[in-house]
């Protein structure tokens, strides 16, 4: 299971199926916290520079199985955990994560992996101080995604599971499974449910009220210049320079 946070920092995560509006909410939260003078770091799911080339290649070649999909996404998380999230929490930073271990618990299990196996794999990470779960009914989320984006991607639509030949149909079934897993985790992990069908502003009000409570008496690392924190991976940096971009 997830360990308790024993650092001076605070860990706040948002969760929800695609199209739940969680990224919009965490972005607003990020800007607000920064403007208040907190040291804030933002970490996104599947964004490790070290693991990126491997994930990209596997997606392109459709080479993932449910197990390797799961382990490699945990590898990505572990790299962000070891190189940024954990040390920054130790330093007293507020770390915001757009998707966290719960995404793996929902998705990897919807793909047929063993629930205990996936949970054990992430047991090096902390239970967040706040885990906000943006809940929207399936049809609304599906409409938001299929209406706004050009084309669903293979793994995003769960095409590897052979649920349907149609990307859209497969996406619906797959997202439905993920939604079921999320709903189960509300009690298991005490996720805070926020109604993702409410107007953006109303949702943000609830989010801020909640976070205010969590940050009561919180000192944290000072940030007098209100500067964002960027963690460069020197290896990724070197690569980019080599490529001339």
């Amino acid at each position, binding site marked *: 299971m997830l360990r308790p946070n024993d650092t001076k920092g605070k860990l706040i995560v948002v969760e929800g199926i695609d199209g739940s509006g969680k990224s919009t909410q965490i972005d607003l939260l990020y800007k607000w916290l920064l403007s208040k003078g907190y040291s804030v770091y933002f970490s996104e799911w599947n964004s490790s520079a070290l693991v990126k*080339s491997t994930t990209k290649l596997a997606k392109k070649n459709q*080479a993932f199985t449910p*197990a390797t999909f799961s*382990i490699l996404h945990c590898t990505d998380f572990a790299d962000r955990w*070891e190189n940024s999230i954990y040390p920054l929490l130790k330093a007293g930073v507020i770390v915001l994560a757009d998707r966290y271990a719960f995404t793996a618990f929902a998705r990897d299990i919807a793909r047929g992996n*063993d629930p205990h196996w996936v949970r054990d794999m992430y047991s090096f990470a902390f239970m967040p101080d706040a885990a906000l779960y943006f809940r929207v009914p399936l049809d609304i989320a599906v409409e938001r995604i299929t209406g706004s984006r050009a084309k669903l991607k293979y793994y995003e639509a769960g095409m590897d599971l052979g649920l349907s030949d149609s990307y859209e149909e497969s996406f619906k079934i797959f997202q439905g499974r993920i939604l079921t897993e999320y709903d189960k985790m509300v009690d298991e992990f005490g996720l805070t449910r926020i109604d993702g069908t409410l107007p953006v502003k109303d949702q943000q009000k609830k989010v801020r009220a909640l976070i205010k409570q969590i940050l009561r008496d919180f000192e944290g690392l000072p940030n007098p210049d209100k500067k964002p924190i960027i963690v460069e991976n020197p290896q990724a940096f070197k690569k980019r320079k080599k490529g001339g971009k």
Partner: protein
Amino acid sequence: MASSEFYGAGFPYRDFGKLTGKLIVLEGTDGVGRTTQVDMLRYWLEEEGYAVADTGLTRSELTKSGLDAAKSGHTLGPVTMSLFYASDFADRLENKIIPALQAGFIVLSDRYFYSMIARDSIRGIDKNWSRDLYGMALRPHLILYLRASVPSLVQRLIHGRGLNYWESGMDLHMADNFYDSFVAYQTEVIKELEELAREYNFVPIDADKPPLEIFEDLKRPIRLLLHNRLTRSERPF
């Protein structure tokens, strides 16, 4: 498939049917001569008429380039490295080893996940976490453990491919030079492997002997396995 064929949950989303082949693992630390022995065993088994497939650590198409790049820098953390190797392991197991076993091959695995647990444990990774992670692993039919002393490893490597950064555990800052670091690190690795040998029922083979004698010692338990005559203490389960 009965789940007892796996150490843990295996790959619960797939039914592999009956695995008619045999999985034989060669374990042992760096420079112990595993690769040479795998080559000789393969030749021997093929001559005897068996279909043989071999596989080693980090040879998966999925992770090879990414893992090489990650290891070339200094930002690779121990948990990340451990998981990277586990991805590779799962990929080879699911896409190479198991299909070969379905087809009735003898699979010779140059190492298995035990070495990875040993190496990770020295880098501060919780052993229970590692064991859970490798719950997807298939139980081999036979685990041959090439047991060598550090002086014989040093002798073999210095006259062979040389001491390298990872095999010397230079990332652990145990010493200021490759030789002292190699000795300190490999002593730790061997200690861990000895512990795993008891836990997982490795069949120990004295690897301080000359390669041809080791080869003969390896053939004996393999013959027994292929004729279903291994004793209980020689079977991994």
